[in-house]
């Protein structure tokens, strides 16, 4: 059972008020962050935009930006001193906080890198070496989801296919109705991969929450299946994981797990962690940018990849302070984000007469909402054009997904919006989107009308 369900336990918030932060209880010793404080923390966001795409680039509150700037200044004042005395302990502190957050057993298992894209390169480069050095046979398999993130797919091409590996994609249904559908497809792909034992499946790359279309994958179950079926290693790409869904390394059981902290965990761009379960075969993970720390373990290598600004990595402890200002801390935030995005998704689908891409329990703080068929979304290019049009003409920022009709499908929804909900969002953001689409429909707009 996927652990991401945990945040749904407990009472649902039926408060339909546009203001979502709870007012502080007079009797409690400390008060939680107020709505006006939240607004202030995000006052640098462009006020003209309904920013319902936290999933792409995340957000960073003003107090964290300020903390980051202090760190930057510290460095600029006396960089040698910073390098020799402050940097390493600071990174270790961040890693220690993350280790606790994700329930890793050893801090050595936690490395800090720029982003999930970098983490993927680290894990996959090791696969390339294994092929080059003959530990893997040509034709050995890597499995990934069809909806794997574009960068990860390319990374697999660069480091696995080019090295002689064979890549198998798990075709996932979308819209999807239950985790069983996903598990079923995964098993099928694994069978294909193993080819009756003729070859080994060396690596499974599985998203915790797919990007486009966005769905929460039953990751724990899939990892279990991988173990049963003799897959060497499992790499979970949880770019959206931390701050969005439950992230527990013991519970999930993967060999490698990466998540961006700048998406849903209020860090400035950019910082991510790569968890690598302690085992003999994980000794040869290396950061591709080699410094004098080469060979001292991935965490130490990643803590120095040449002169650059490490402040986003050093500010992690401050983010924990920020998150504690919310009722329930990060778990409270996750739960409220989830409840709100579901509510907004349902509101939009109802207003447009469309459907959601998955049931609420298969999403976290993002949800796919079908767009009216009259918009005529019929290609990936259409989605980009529509997105640009919504940004430029309606002040709405939201990514659009094209879902091609399969053979013999008629009248299916071909366009979905991926809406996000984060603490700075308000109901008005979604009603603005609702009205924009209604306007377009009313005007007889189709994507074909947009020039390239």
């Amino acid at each position: 059972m996927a652990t991401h369900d945990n945040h749904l336990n407990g009472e649902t918030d039926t408060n339909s008020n546009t203001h979502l932060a709870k007012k502080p209880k007079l009797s409690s010793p400390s008060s939680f962050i107020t709505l006006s404080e939240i607004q202030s923390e995000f006052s640098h966001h462009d006020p003209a935009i309904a920013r319902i795409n936290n999933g792409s680039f995340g957000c960073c509150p003003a107090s964290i930006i300020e903390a980051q700037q202090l760190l930057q200044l510290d460095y600029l004042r006396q960089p040698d001193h910073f390098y020799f005395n402050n940097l390493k302990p600071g990174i270790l502190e961040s890693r220690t906080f993350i280790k606790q957050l994700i329930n890793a057993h050893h801090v050595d298992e936690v490395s800090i890198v720029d982003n999930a894209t970098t983490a993927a390169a680290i894990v996959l480069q090791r696969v390339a070496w294994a092929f080059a050095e003959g530990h893997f046979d040509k034709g050995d398999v890597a499995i990934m989801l069809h909806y794997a993130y574009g960068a990860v797919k390319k990374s697999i091409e660069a480091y696995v296919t080019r090295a002689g590996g064979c890549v198998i994609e798990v075709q996932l249904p979308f819209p999807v109705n239950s985790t069983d559908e996903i598990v079923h497809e995964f098993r099928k792909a694994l069978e294909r991969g193993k080819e009756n034992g003729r070859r080994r499946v060396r690596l499974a790359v599985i998203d915790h929450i797919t990007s486009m279309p966005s769905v929460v994958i039953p990751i724990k179950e899939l990892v279990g299946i991988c173990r049963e079926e003799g897959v060497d290693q499992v790499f979970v790409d949880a770019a959206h994981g931390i701050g969005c869904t439950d992230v527990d390394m013991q519970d999930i059981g993967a060999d490698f797990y990466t998540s961006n902290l700048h998406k849903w965990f209020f860090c400035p761009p950019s910082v991510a962690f790569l968890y690598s379960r302690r085992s003999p075969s994980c000794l040869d993970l290396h950061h591709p940018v080699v410094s004098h720390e080469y060979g001292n373990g991935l965490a130490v290598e990643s803590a120095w990849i040449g002169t650059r600004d490490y402040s986003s990595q050093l500010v992690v402890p401050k983010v924990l302070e920020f998150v504690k200002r919310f009722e329930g801390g990060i778990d409270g935030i996750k739960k409220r984000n989830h409840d709100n995005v579901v509510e907004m998704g349902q509101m939009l689908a109802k207003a447009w007469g469309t459907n959601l891409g998955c049931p609420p329990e298969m999403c976290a703080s993002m949800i796919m909402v079908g767009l009216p068929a009259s918009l005529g979304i019929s290609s990936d290019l259409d989605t980009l054009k529509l997105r640009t049009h919504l940004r430029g003409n309606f002040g709405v920022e939201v990514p659009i997904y094209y879902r091609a009709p399969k053979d013999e499908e008629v009248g299916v929804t071909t366009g979905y919006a991926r809406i996000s909900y984060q603490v700075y969002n308000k109901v008005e953001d979604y009603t603005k989107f609702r009205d924009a689409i209604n306007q377009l429909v009313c005007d007889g707009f189709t994507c074909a009308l947009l020039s390239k």
Partner: protein
Amino acid sequence: MDKEEDPRNGDDHVTATKKPKLIRFITDSELRSEFSHHEAGVARINNGSFGCCPGSVLAAQRSWQLRFLQQPDHFYFSTLRPNLLRSRALIQTLINAHHIDEVSLVDNATTAAAIVLQQIGRRYAHYRNDTVVMFRCAFPAVKKSIQAYVTRAGASVVEVDLPFPVSSNSEIIAEFRKGLSRAKSDSRKVRLAIIDHITSMPSVVIPVRELVHICREEGVEQVFVDAAHAIGSVPIDVQQIGADFYVSNLYKWFFAPPSVAFLYCRKSNPSSCETHHPVVSHEYGNGLPVESSWIGTRDYTPHLVVPAILEFVNRFEGGSEGIMRRNHEEVARMGKMLAEAWGTSLGSPPEMCASMMMVGLPSKLHVSSDDDATRLRSHLRDKYGVEVPIYHRAPKNGESESEPRDEHGLITGYARISHQVYNRIEDYYKFRDAINRIILEETNLME
């Protein structure tokens, strides 16, 4: 020093940046204000390690950062790429590259080394028994990168000694020829030569144009110039230098915030299309410049401030050339002052340095290991407020006459002093006096 006579680069280098008509140049007090964030009370004579960034460039950077945070999607779709292109175009002109496709922006020289070496390593999967040549004093990260990508793939490394102290380019050239011949012995093929434009420790300006030429004569397949210190320090003309790959950090001597570097990849080099950024994004296969312009979500603002840097630099008399010339003159002057005060000598003649200089430390300090050097550096920082890297030079020939010495013994320690626009003579006096104090009061502590 007139740029036409500058022996460090050879022929005419076209000044490519247009200088706006100025009413006046930057004043002393404006300059102090630009670097007012530097810690007061520290004699910061180590610009070479981490560089510096003036307040106005930092302000430009913060402005870009804010724009991203305000509306990141818009930034990504409409702002980032055109402005990266703008930075690249300015650099292309600065270094006299022929095509903008030859110019990529990366974080630092360490990243560039990984890019170049990863590409070499891929080719080596098929060729064993081939060699890579580099200087023994190559930057430690580059040495490790060679280990990670080249040695691991089966090739062997031949190290060239850098004579130090050194008195002329011909010494370096001779040593390099020897190294090359060793690398070619037993019919081996030299796949790559890595040549520093300005070595890090000990720091010397290498006759890079001559060495690249020799590499071509001797059939070296690819030449990679690690010019981490070059831009803002010496004039750069990639046509003159003639290497296949050339990298320089902009945050060291060219006033960029941490961190940004350019990697030049000559178009005519057949492996240039096989050169990739190791962090693979959806841009994979679209050419290194485009790959490097998007390696996942991160803060690209240091790559966007090149126009602001040029504005800053052009506030100085003579622009970048003027700054380089004055830095060179001052560091030579300061080096000489220190050597005279201590009774020691310089590591190289002034014409073999740019804005850094190696100054012999008194033998009485007994710097007899790398650890001693590190300890002395920390001591100078913590007790005397002087920031300067120290180099340990082990004697090669025992007590022979060719060894550098002062009145009391062998010179085994050198300080690498830097001069950048924010430095003042007091910084070097402070250093001079600190060393004199240590000798007077603390010499027994160094043993």
